[in-house]
């Protein structure tokens, strides 16, 4: 017996010489919705959109329809189109409408290809679709190799100074946010690096780690940041593996795309670095790992935990239950535990941090301290009464 089924239908008709009308229906066990999208054939721009719900869940779901209009003007052929739809329609309206819209748009793109072939075939009757495709696909722009998961190597940082460079005297014991994302190095962050550092100072941290997605900060640039702000700024990296995200220290290799976790383990070991599994039990929006029947004991059996040096058990982007679960797993296996805000906005810096007993001056000290142990994750802002601005 089926546990769940989803059906989607898209029909495209040609309204006039340069306009397609796409009608999409999504019907599954939970939701039922329809959209109508008018698309200009020549440049695949969305001209008009409307939608309706047939079945929905929350009493506020109908609000989503008002936001569908934000898709007007988007161009299906444009680089990053589907990310834009997820961000604009998925977040402001509804992810299911976004899913159906993408289905309509990808159908329209193929329909436009067919329409182009038909136009050419009208003058050249012998042109087969396959022959047309060979020519058409040859002319398609090559995927941009920099359009990968990271922001790329050379990021220009706009100086937002002046800053007061007050060198903080640290004597034994330091609190460092081990997991921070900055803009533009991490495309998902809206927190400029200078502001993150100033915020870390403001809330009383002793240091901050820049762990942008698949991005290696140049040592010289980070040294400049330290000087400019008079604050401990350390280099790290958050790398996506086939088993999830890893926060890595002491590895200077620029790793792009998705790497197998075993391979990353080898690279980190070779470099003498340290690898922390980030938010290992980040769950789903409407249910947690408990509902799946996952217990800490079962989770401990994951081969991943034999490959990492520590577990992030306090992460600012997951729920308390998910953090607790990670803590139980780390404790059960006997792996060290760390804390980091996973900040993507300035105000999130320092939500969680890691308290070290050693003095840390640079990345080498950090890796040494991480390997040595004797540190613990802390809910830094709560401790300081800084839960909210």
């Amino acid at each position: 017996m089926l546990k769940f089924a989803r059906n989607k239908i898209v029909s495209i008709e040609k309204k006039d010489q340069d306009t397609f009308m796409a009608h999409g229906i999504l019907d599954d066990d939970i939701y039922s919705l329809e959209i109508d999208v008018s698309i200009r054939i020549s440049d695949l721009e969305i001209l008009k959109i409307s939608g309706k719900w047939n079945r929905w869940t929350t009493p506020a779901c109908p609000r989503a329809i008002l936001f569908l209009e934000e898709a007007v003007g988007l161009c299906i052929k444009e680089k990053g189109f589907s990310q834009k739809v997820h961000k604009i329609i998925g977040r402001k309206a509804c992810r299911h409408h976004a899913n159906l819209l993408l289905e309509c748009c990808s159908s329209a793109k193929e329909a436009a290809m067919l329409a182009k072939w038909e136009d050419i075939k009208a003058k050249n009757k012998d042109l087969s679709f396959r022959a047309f495709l060979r020519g058409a696909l040859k002319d398609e722009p090559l995927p941009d190799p920099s359009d990968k998961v990271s922001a790329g190597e050379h990021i220009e940082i706009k100086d937002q100074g002046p800053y007061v460079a007050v060198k903080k005297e640290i004597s034994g014991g330091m609190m460092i946010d081990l997991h921070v994302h900055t803009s533009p190095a991490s495309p998902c962050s809206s927190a400029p690096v200078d502001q993150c550092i100033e915020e870390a100072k403001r809330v009383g941290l002793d240091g901050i780690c820049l762990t942008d997605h698949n991005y290696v900060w140049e040592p010289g640039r980070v040294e400049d940041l330290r000087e400019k702000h008079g604050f401990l700024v350390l280099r790290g990296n958050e790398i996506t593996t086939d088993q999830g995200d890893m926060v890595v220290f002491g590895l200077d290799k620029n790793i792009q795309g998705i790497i197998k976790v075993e391979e990353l383990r080898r690279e980190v070991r070779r470099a003498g670095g340290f690898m922390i599994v980030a938010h290992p039990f980040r769950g789903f929006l409407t249910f947690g790992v408990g509902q799946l029947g996952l217990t800490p004991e079962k989770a401990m059996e994951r081969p991943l935990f034999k490959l990492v040096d520590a577990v992030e058990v306090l992460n600012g982007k997951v729920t308390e239950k998910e953090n607790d679960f990670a803590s139980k797993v780390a404790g059960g296996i006997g792996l060290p535990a760390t804390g980091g805000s996973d900040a993507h906005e300035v105000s999130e810096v320092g939500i969680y941090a890691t308290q070290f007993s050693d003095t840390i001056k640079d990345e080498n000290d950090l890796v040494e301290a991480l390997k040595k142990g004797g540190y613990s994750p802390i809910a830094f802002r709560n401790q300081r009464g800084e839960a909210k601005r």
Partner: protein
Amino acid sequence: MANILKYSRNRCTSVEQVDDHTMRSTCRLQDTLTDAFVEIMVKLPDLEITGISGVIHRAYQEECLNPTDSLQKVIGVRIGPGMLKIIEGLIGEATDCKQLAFMVEECCHGVILSFTKDVLISSPRPTDADKAKEFYAQMVKENMRLYNRCAAFAPGSPIVEGIEPPVQ
């Protein structure tokens, strides 16, 4: 030529529980240019993809016609947050056939939605506004990632009225 379609697409995703520890999710696509089928086997409770197969009978991109090797790249991946990046990355490195990655994602979304359905089965009807509002407000309080995740949970929605937004 009045009202004759230029293009049509049907996509069906279905999920079944094979046994206590295994789920099967399939995605079938039939449209004007493509006829494809992808199936994943998922192990509970980790939601790890333990098996995958696919057949593409018809496709306009030649690279889509032999999907087996590319699909195997996602074996061992766990369905969960961040999976789209992983699936697109792993399959994208092996093939230019974008439809394959999308079909795997649809299979994975099907699995997630099957668990969402289990949660929502006990939810009040949206027409029972007060009870429904309370039910979903509680869901947001228990998982603040839901806050501002869509129009229903955005500031201004009655569901999140009185709920403090996460630290911003």
